[in-house]
Structure formats: C-alpha cells, structure tokens
C-alpha cells in the first residue's frame, strides 16, 4: 500500500459517527437558529474536523499504528473541535438556553474555573496513564468513552474562556492564569512522554499490521517506534502549548487595548488613603 492508497482507502464511515455529526448539525440549525455567518462557519468547521478526526485515515493510523497520530486526533478533539463548537453558539441562544434555573445552576457548577480546569486536566492526565490508555486501545467501547470524555471536559474547559456571553466569561487576568496553568500541565505531560523510555504504550511498539502499511510507515515515512512516541509527546508539548500561548497573548492584547474608562477596577493606593504611611 502506498501513502496515496492509504489516504484514499482508509476511511471508516462508522455510521454512529456520521449520524452523530449529522445530528449535531441538525440540532444546531433547528434549535439554535444562528444568524451570524461567522458563528455558522465556526460551528460547521468544528463538526467537519470532528468527522475528519474520527473517520479519516487519522483514525485508522491512531487505532493501530502511530501514537503520534493518535495524539493529533486527541488534540483535534480537545483544542480544535470543542473551541469551534463553542464559538459557534450565539449569545442569544446561550442566554435563552441558560434561562432555565436548573440548567443555569448546572452551568455555574460545570463552568466554575476550578471544576472545569480540574476536569480537563484529570481527563488528559488519567487517560495518558499507560494502564488506562492501553486498556482503551484494546477495547473499542472504552475508546469511544475516552473520546466522549475528552469532548465533554474540553467543552467545559473552553466554555468560560470562549463563550459568547460576556457575563459568563472569565476576566482577562483569570483567563491568563487559567490557560497558563493548563499549558503548564500540558507541557509537563508532553515532556514526560517525550523523554520517557520506549514502551509506555506497547501496542504502538509492535503494531498489529491490519492494513499492511507497517513497512510503509517505518521505512518510507521513517517513523520508528521511538520517534513515534517522542513525536507524540512533542505534539502535546509544543503545538498544543502554542495554541494556549496564542490565546493568552491575544487575551492580554485585547484587554490592554480596551479603551473604556473603568474606574471600578482601579484602586486607591495607600497614599490616597493615607493610612499605612502614618
């Protein structure tokens, strides 16, 4: 099999995924009734990326051959799909949807920054513990669960940062801290995987060659098992880190260039109060 054949044939149109994605779109257009082209674009891109991540050769490669591609798949779910879906939700719908007290209180708990940060970190950290990761690889059902958990926790994570409802968004300083700590966690995990000895995830060291492309990968692409694990760690460490990084810098610039005069956020120094000096 050549790379070309692989890209053309290794598509797995798993019905549940296709139906799920179609349902996501249908629900969106039926209930949300978006009007802004920008939001529709975000949402649809999100769904398309989701579909691509789960049915394209990415999925075949990540299920059987390459840890690094599996990492790409997870990063797509966590760092691309979830943020895009959230960006696709317009404020008016969010406000309507959260109008019901129960849902509103659920939102308050789930998007509490401590809760959402911890949930996302736990999901990412625990699923990369070799025990759980290998178990998920071996059992398809658990694997699906893994992906669902990533999607849910990532949505919780990004909601307070990206939601279109300004009142629900974290302040600039809190956002910076929130994302900085997340990227720190992410980097540490990535660094550990990069520098760990080979064999954290044995399924990728000696893959079952179901598609007959192992030689292609090892020789033509030149990705050895060692390089694969390193690359996977590096992907988690750097490109993912850069996404957090860009959002942090964007947040700071947007906040710094805010020109409104907000006297409530400025403070009295002790000179004006004059109490400590005495």
């Amino acid at each position, binding site marked *: 099999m050549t790379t070309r054949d692989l890209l053309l044939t290794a598509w797995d149109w798993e019905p549940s995924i296709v139906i799920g994605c179609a349902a996501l779109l249908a629900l969106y257009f039926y209930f949300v009734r978006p009007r802004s082209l920008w939001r529709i674009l975000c949402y649809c891109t999100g769904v398309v990326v989701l579909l691509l991540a789960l049915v394209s050769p990415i999925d075949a490669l990540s299920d059987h051959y390459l840890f690094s591609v599996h990492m790409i798949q997870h990063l797509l779910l966590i760092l691309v799909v979830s943020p895009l879906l959230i960006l696709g939700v317009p404020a008016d719908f969010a406000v309507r949807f959260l109008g019901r007290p129960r849902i509103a209180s659920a939102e308050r708990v789930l998007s509490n920054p401590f809760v959402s940060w911890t949930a996302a970190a736990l999901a990412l950290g625990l699923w990369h513990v070799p025990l759980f990761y290998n178990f998920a690889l071996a059992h398809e059902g658990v694997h699906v669960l893994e992906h669902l958990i990533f999607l849910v926790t990532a949505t919780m994570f990004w909601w307070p940062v990206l939601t279109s409802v300004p009142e629900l968004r974290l*302040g600039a*300083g809190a956002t910076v801290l929130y994302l900085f700590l997340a990227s720190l966690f992410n980097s540490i995990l990535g660094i550990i995987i990069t*520098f760990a000895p080979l064999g954290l995830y044995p399924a990728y060291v000696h893959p079952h060659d179901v598609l007959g492309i192992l030689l292609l990968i090892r020789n033509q692409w030149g990705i050895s098992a060692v390089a694969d694990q390193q690359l996977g760690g590096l992907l988690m460490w750097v490109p993912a880190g850069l996404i957090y990084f860009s959002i942090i810098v964007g947040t700071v610039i947007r906040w710094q260039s805010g020109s409104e005069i907000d006297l409530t*956020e400025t*403070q*009295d120094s002790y000179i004006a109060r004059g109490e400590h000096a005495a």
Partner: protein
Amino acid sequence: MPAEFIHHKNRVLILAFIFSESIFFAFLITAFVLYHGRSPNGPNAHNTLDPLKTGMYSIILWASSLTMWLSEKSMMNFRMDRCKRWLEATMILGGIFLIGQGFEYHGMFAKGISIGTDLFATTFFSTTGFHGLHVFIGLIVLLIMRGLTSAGFGQEEYQREGFIAASYYWHFVDAIWVAVFFILYVWGTR
C-alpha cells in the same frame, strides 16, 4: 487585578514565592525521576524506602495542614485561644514529621547509605533534605507566629494577613510533600 487583592501584599508575595519554590523542587524531583533505575546494584528506592512507615508520617504532616487551617479560621473569628492551640498542634505534628524523617535518615546512615553512595541516594537525600529544610523553616515561622500571638498579634487586618501568608507557606510545604511522597515512595517503589 480583582479588588480584593488591594491589601494583600503579603499574600501576593507568598504566592509568587511558592510558585518560585515549586520550580526549584520540580528540578530536584525531575532528577530523581530521570535517574530512577540507574542504581540497580546499590541502594535504590525498591530496597531502601518504606512507603508504609513514611506514609504514616506523611499523614501526620498532611493533618498539620488541617490544624493550620483551623488555627487560621479561629484567628479570623477572633478566637485567639483556639488559634494558639491549633497553632501548637500544627507545630507538634510538623515536629513529629521531622523526627520521623530523622529516624529514616538514621536508619539509612546505619546501613552505610549516605548522599554520595549512588544516584538514588543523591537524589533521595537532596529532595527530601530540601523538603525537610523547608519544614524546619516553616516551624520557625510558626514559632514566631506563636510568640507574636502571645503578644497580642492578630487584632489588626494587616497582622492577620501576615498570619495567612505564613499558613500559605505551611500548606505549600505539605503540598510539595504530596508530590515527593507519591513520586519517590509510591511510584519509585512500585
């Protein structure tokens, strides 16, 4: 910067300091992880550490975080007597932990294991030693706090801020031990 930060220069300082100290420890712990398994013949985590016994002392140390928190709460409620009692309890628990560490070291010295014996010993004594040093400094801080409370400290807001800063430091010392314990004693001996 949220408005509640205004008076909290002690708190800002100690939080930034804790951040700084965590990075210091991160490099020592990384050295342990990096060199884990490189002392197959000499003493290593498997044949030297006793997670059970140290686990007991660890629980005592973590319990001291609880008593510290209670002491802080009492001060905030102007219950100075309780504050002093809980502070003393914290110091006793911290002291017990240090004594436990002393016994552990003593046992290792008795077996001829010292910091230069092999890579395990070097990384182990460095990490736990620096942690022990931090506990010791924490105890001195608490001792000062105890002395000050006897002198009527804790009525003014800025004084309570100082107390809170001290308690943050103590919680940090305990939190670092969580990392040290689980990496050196649990992961290291698995």
